[in-house]
């Protein structure tokens, strides 16, 4: 009988793992062309999930040959096996087989960027110490050739002790060879040791010898460099007591007070420089069109002007180009809802389908045009290497308001819609900066606030001239500025309190400009849209149906027959749960100058702020699709029971402030939940902004009427 291979699968992995012949970790430095290669190798056979307990995405793909299925795990870009960030820690944990729910890799596909061998080799050399079958894919060989870099792959392969396959992921050249090598990775012998740091190797040998269990050399080396940490606790437990007591004395003798990470970098980069002399035939020269463009944008002034132009186009696209598509979605849902009433007649069921389900689905897909357009730009900018440059140029300005350079795109995008803006915060590597940006983003005046502002301003702000400016326009501008100031203040306060922490090191790799790969762009875009529909869409839909039910039930049979349709709808709403809720909370909102009508409209607009217009339309019996002029007339004439006007200037100013500050958007709440992977931040953001909105409206009304 043949010898049984060792099976290392935990019960929770069996469902995925039983048909997988080998699991391979795809690793490399950031921007090395790893994702493009991963997409090339797996095509659409990939799944995006999350690693347990964190927001880092887990990309797993598969590829099949005639007799085997190989699983590829695309790991976050990493510079070293000593992790410096959450993403890097995850990559290192998966590589060492410490990640819960992810099978320990059977082999390593190391991706090495031919235009950046210096940093790439530093990491790949560490990977060769893992004692795992390893294949190196040398990417960007076309770009390297254009830059005048000639690489001796035979020599490189000999020096690393692993096979090196040059590929051009964008055209597919060299992929077949690589694919065959990966499918048969178990046949590749683990690399022999390249001992670039003999003293460290000797110390590691000593620990291995004095331990009972077979221990991996690379893991021991990392333990010597990193010391005992949370991440390697399980590994440390495997050491014998003898080895464990030896650990610190060995480290002391080895580093003599020098920071271990620094020593590691010094020793290995010295080795890398030696290798470069041997394998890189000519020094890179910068003559390509990419370099010319890079050089132009390298100057501070053209660079900054260029950045503002790019921002203007992105903002314009998300704001304006999405509008026609959103109008189409709006009209289609409306006519679909109308058709439902025509076919099924007027009943609770047809109202559920039309006003609940169809408008709920509409409320979800209405976000798609903005999300897809914004992400098309972000992915293009990121893949072309421009996003890093934008962050670099804006770093100083953003830093002064408590954010980082990478916050600029999410913040600008949030003027169109906070949902794609918050999704875009992924480009921010520092967690505190990222959460501060997420909390500031919903204060930016989004396109859903605009109709509310427009209605109230048109109705209550006189169109008088202030100098050459129109007062209405000034008020609108003021509201935009107000949002920015409150967002920035929030970020500043948060960075001083709950998100206080060391300033993150700002070391940004600035890649040369390169043409983005369309397949990679399409895959990423598809991924973003799917994530939104799955994680946020369900919440938005559920909330839309709940609000429908609150506004529909219970029905009253006592509506007089002679009243017109709109008045009947208004009367139904008044005695619905929503209307009753408005009356119940009336005392709460009374200090703000609101009656039950305004209160119920505000409550109904918590899932989506623009809904307030439709609800006001219904309450004031002008129909929920009445034009703005009719509604604003009705608002102007609305009276309190004592005959005084309902909508006084202080009350309207308060209402505007409330809508500027309040987080009335289920989609934003859902996406904060999704992006922070906890309910803590969405609950905080919602409560904080609601309190701010209430206090703001209260102050405006009380001061204005005092």
């Amino acid at each position, binding site marked *: 009988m043949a010898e049984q291979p060792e099976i290392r699968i935990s019960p929770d992995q069996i469902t995925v793992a039983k048909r997988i012949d080998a699991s391979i970790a795809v690793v490399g430095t950031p921007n090395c062309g790893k994702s493009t290669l991963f997409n090339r190798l797996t095509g659409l056979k990939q799944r995006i999930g999350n690693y347990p307990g964190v927001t880092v995405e887990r990309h797993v793909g598969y590829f099949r040959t005639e007799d085997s299925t190989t699983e590829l795990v695309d790991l976050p870009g990493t*510079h070293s096996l000593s992790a410096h960030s959450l993403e890097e820690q995850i990559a290192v944990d998966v590589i060492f087989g410490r990640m819960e729910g992810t099978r320990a890799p059977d082999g390593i596909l190391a991706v090495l960027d031919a235009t950046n061998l*210096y*940093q790439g080799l530093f990491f790949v050399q560490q990977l060769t110490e893992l004692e795992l079958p390893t294949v190196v894919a040398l990417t960007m060989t076309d770009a390297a050739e254009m830059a005048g870099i000639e690489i001796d792959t035979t020599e490189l392969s000999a020096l690393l002790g692993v096979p090196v396959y040059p590929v051009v992921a964008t055209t597919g050249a060299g992929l077949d060879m690589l694919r065959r090598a990966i499918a048969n990775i178990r046949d590749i012998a683990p690399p022999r040791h390249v001992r670039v740091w003999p003293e460290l190797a000797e110390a590691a040998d000593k620990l291995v010898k004095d331990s009972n269990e077979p221990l991996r050399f690379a893991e021991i080396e990392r333990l010597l460099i990193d010391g005992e940490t949370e991440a390697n606790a399980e590994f440390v437990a495997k050491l014998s007591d003898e080895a464990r007591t030896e650990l610190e004395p060995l480290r002391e003798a080895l580093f003599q007070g020098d*920071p271990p*990470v*620094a020593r*590691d970098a010094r020793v290995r980069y010295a080795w890398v420089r030696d290798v470069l002399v041997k394998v890189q035939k000519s020094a890179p020269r910068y003559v390509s069109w990419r370099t010319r463009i890079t050089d132009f944008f390298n100057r501070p002034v053209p660079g900054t002007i260029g950045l503002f132009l790019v921002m203007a186009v992105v903002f314009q696209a998300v704001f304006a180009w999405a509008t026609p598509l959103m109008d189409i979605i709006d009209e289609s849902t409306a006519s679909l809802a109308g058709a439902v009433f025509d076919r099924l007649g007027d009943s609770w069921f047809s109202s559920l389908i039309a006003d609940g389900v169809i408008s709920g689905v509409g409320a979800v897909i209405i976000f798609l045009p903005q999300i897809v357009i914004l992400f098309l730009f972000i992915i293009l900018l990121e893949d072309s290497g421009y996003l890093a440059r934008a962050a670099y140029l804006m*770093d100083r300005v953003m830093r002064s308001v408590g954010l980082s350079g990478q916050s600029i795109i999410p913040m600008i995008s949030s003027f169109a819609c906070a949902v794609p803006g918050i999704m875009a915060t992924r480009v921010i590597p520092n967690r505190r900066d990222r959460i501060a940006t997420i909390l500031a983003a919903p204060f930016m005046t989004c396109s859903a606030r605009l109709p509310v502002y427009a209605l109230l301003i048109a109705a209550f702000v006189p169109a008088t001239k202030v100098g050459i400016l129109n007062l209405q326009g000034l008020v609108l501008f003021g509201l935009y500025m107000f949002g920015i100031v409150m967002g920035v203040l929030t970020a500043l306060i948060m960075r001083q309190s709950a998100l206080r922490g060391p300033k993150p090191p700002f070391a940004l*790799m600035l*890649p040369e400009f390169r043409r983005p790969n369309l397949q990679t762009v399409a895959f990423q875009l598809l991924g973003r849209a799917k994530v939104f529909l799955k994680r946020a869409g369900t919440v938005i839909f559920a909330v839309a149906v709940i609000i429908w039910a609150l506004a529909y039930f219970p029905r009253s049979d006592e509506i007089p027959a002679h009243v017109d349709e709109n008045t009947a709808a208004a009367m139904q709403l008044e005695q619905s749960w929503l209307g009753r809720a408005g009356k119940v909370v009336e005392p709460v909102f009374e200090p703000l100058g609101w009656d039950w009508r305004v209160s119920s409209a505000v409550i109904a607009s918590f899932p989506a702020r623009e809904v307030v217009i439709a609800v006001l339309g219904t309450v004031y019996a002008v129909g929920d699709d009445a034009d703005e002029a009719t509604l604003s007339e009705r608002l102007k004439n609305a009276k309190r029971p004592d005959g005084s006007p309902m909508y006084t200037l202080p009350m309207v100013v308060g209402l505007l402030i409330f809508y500027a500050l309040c987080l009335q958007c289920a989609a934003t709440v859902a996406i904060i939940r999704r992006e922070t992977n906890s309910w803590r931040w969405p609950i905080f953001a919602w409560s904080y902004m609601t309190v701010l909105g209430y206090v703001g409206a209260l102050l405006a009304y009380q001061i204005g009427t005092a």
Partner: protein
Amino acid sequence: MSINGNTLASLKRGQKGIIQAVDASDPQVQRLMVLGLVEGAEVEHASSAIGGDPMEFRLFGCGISLRQEHARHFQVAPVAAGG
């Protein structure tokens, strides 16, 4: 270790230098060393943002940006122009 003389921060645009010493006490500087800014590496000051901060350096063909406060931890020997 204290750094004196020329640092990365004092390189002019277009000027090259070889790193001579690094004050590695700051963990953020250690992180930069992991990215390859170590003794013996040749770097070129490629650009800076408005106000001169952050600065961009070229290191074996790749661009890397750092703030001035960190650039001061790297002592360099400027390479003569044309050299």
